């Protein structure tokens, strides 16, 4: 099969003194794929993710993100990716429209583009009446959906989602995954971390990191077969139980 590779890492490593946070990580992610990046607390997920989005320089090893080098082309990487985390996503003291304009501006979209995108997005999320309200007054579920839409406002090749559904109610959590599916369907690669093991099942492929190394990487189906497990939760427990280190 001839699939376009959008993330490629080769022995990507990050050391802090003697401590190897991410140890020779090698993997590939394909265009339009939903890739679940799982691991126990302290396994090295955040460290790895920071290298992939161009904000932390690797100790050694290589990686290309959307064809750009993580050592030399970090600015191009940032322009070609979207990022959203549970902890920070939008400015709560700005209105919905202002948030869109701010992020559109940061990503270098023209005023005209921002205007069109703004209109489309607000209409699609059915938030016309809320467009001039402060984000702080929006329900959490809407905020997360809005944050995701803004993270892909500039049509990035890849969107990185760091525990996007934490604390969200079960119905909104599923609506959020509908949006992830749609983005992937439109060719955006989705790189996602989560502690909900049911969400691991929705990924095309998942990797499980333990103590700085990728212990397993496959489709949820193959992984369950390989470990003779009923669910991804079981697979995860089997692999991560032996972890030696905390965060």
């Amino acid at each position, binding site marked *: 099969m001839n699939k376009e590779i959008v993330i490629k890492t080769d022995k990507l490593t990050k050391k802090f003194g003697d401590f190897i946070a991410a140890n020779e990580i090698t993997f590939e992610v394909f265009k339009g794929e939903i890739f679940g990046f799982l691991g126990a607390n302290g396994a090295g997920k955040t460290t790895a993710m920071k290298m992939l989005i161009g904000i932390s320089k690797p100790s050694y090893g290589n990686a290309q993100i959307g064809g750009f080098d993580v050592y030399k082309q970090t600015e191009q990487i940032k322009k070609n990716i979207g990022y959203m985390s549970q902890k920070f996503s939008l400015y709560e003291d700005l209105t919905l429209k202002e948030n869109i304009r701010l992020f559109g501006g940061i990503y270098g979209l023209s005023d005209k583009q921002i205007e069109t995108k703004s209109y489309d997005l607000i209409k699609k999320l059915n938030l016309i009446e809320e467009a001039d309200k402060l984000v*702080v007054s929006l329900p959490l579920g809407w905020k997360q959906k809005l944050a995701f839409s803004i993270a892909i406002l500039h049509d990035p090749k890849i969107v990185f989602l760091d*525990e996007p559904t*934490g604390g969200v109610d079960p119905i909104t959590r599923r609506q959020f995954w509908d949006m992830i599916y749609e983005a992937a369907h439109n060719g955006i690669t989705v790189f996602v971390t989560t502690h909900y093991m049911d969400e691991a099942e929705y990924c095309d492929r998942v990797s499980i990191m333990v103590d700085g190394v990728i212990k397993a990487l496959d489709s949820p189906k193959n992984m369950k077969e390989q470990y003779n497990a009923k669910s991804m939760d079981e697979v995860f427990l089997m692999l991560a139980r032996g972890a030696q280190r905390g*965060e």
Partner: protein
Amino acid sequence: MKAVELENIVKTYPAKKTTVMAVDNISFSVDEGELFGLIGPDGAGKTSIFRILTTLLLADKGDAFVLGYDVVKNFKEIRDIIGYMPGRFSLYQDLTVEENLDFFATIFNTTIQENYDLVADIYRQLEPFKTRRAGKLSGGMKQKLALSCALIHKPKVLFLDEPTTGVDPVSRKEFWEMLKRLKAQGITILVSTPYMDEAKLCDRIALMQSGKILQIDTPQNIVNEFGKNLYAVHSENMFQLLVELREYPQTESCFAFGENHHLTLKDEAFDISELEKHLTTRGHSNLTIKKIEPEIEDCFMQLMKAHQNPSHIVAMPKEGLYEYN
């Protein structure tokens, strides 16, 4: 006597030009020795209830008691007999592990040695790091230290506000095993969590949403009251399957649920083999449809749909809870 009792508790917070109803006339009680769970997403009102019961926040209306003590009149008595682990890490970051534990023991007029047996099981895992500053600990270790500090004065009632949020599945499992052992020692535990799969580990649970209790019972009774046949549907193409199941005229609700989709039908008497035929003609391979027992999360979603539009949830910003004290 009840370990915890709430009667018509109301708590609102001022917000820009409006008020947020954080706890909307809630009443429930917890028996002594019970492991009781408040289950719900952000904005359900869990933290406000904890802070009212631990005498850190005044309710607008209603009464609350801990082991018979009034949270307003007898706040000093309550503070002596409870342990509280807030959702946000609240130990002294610049003190070492041992200093933190010693500090909490001292302010409760006790010593680490006196109640060591109660925390031994948890603290033993921390001992190799006892000279490390708390701020330098990993997330899992911080959580264990916070629990040790909440326990060191041998409280009668333990309040744990989202102790497992953001914690990986392995550590979550270990944490619940610790809770089970504490319960066996006779401590009443009130715990909150947004993870629905943890609900079944409690004796009784309150399912909460937007300041209201949707249902309160044992996990098994809540599951028994689901009242509908629930089917797990699986095929090779799960996304396509979800779209088609939602469009199917007989479908009442259909949600992705890990490796399966969970489906309820409008007409319970409907012959499910009709659906099987329908999906097979649409090209689904390796199709399975199984009748299953609902999980707490299925029940929660059913209750949410029955109560209101799920998107009308205003979650208080975490910081806000601490500003209006």
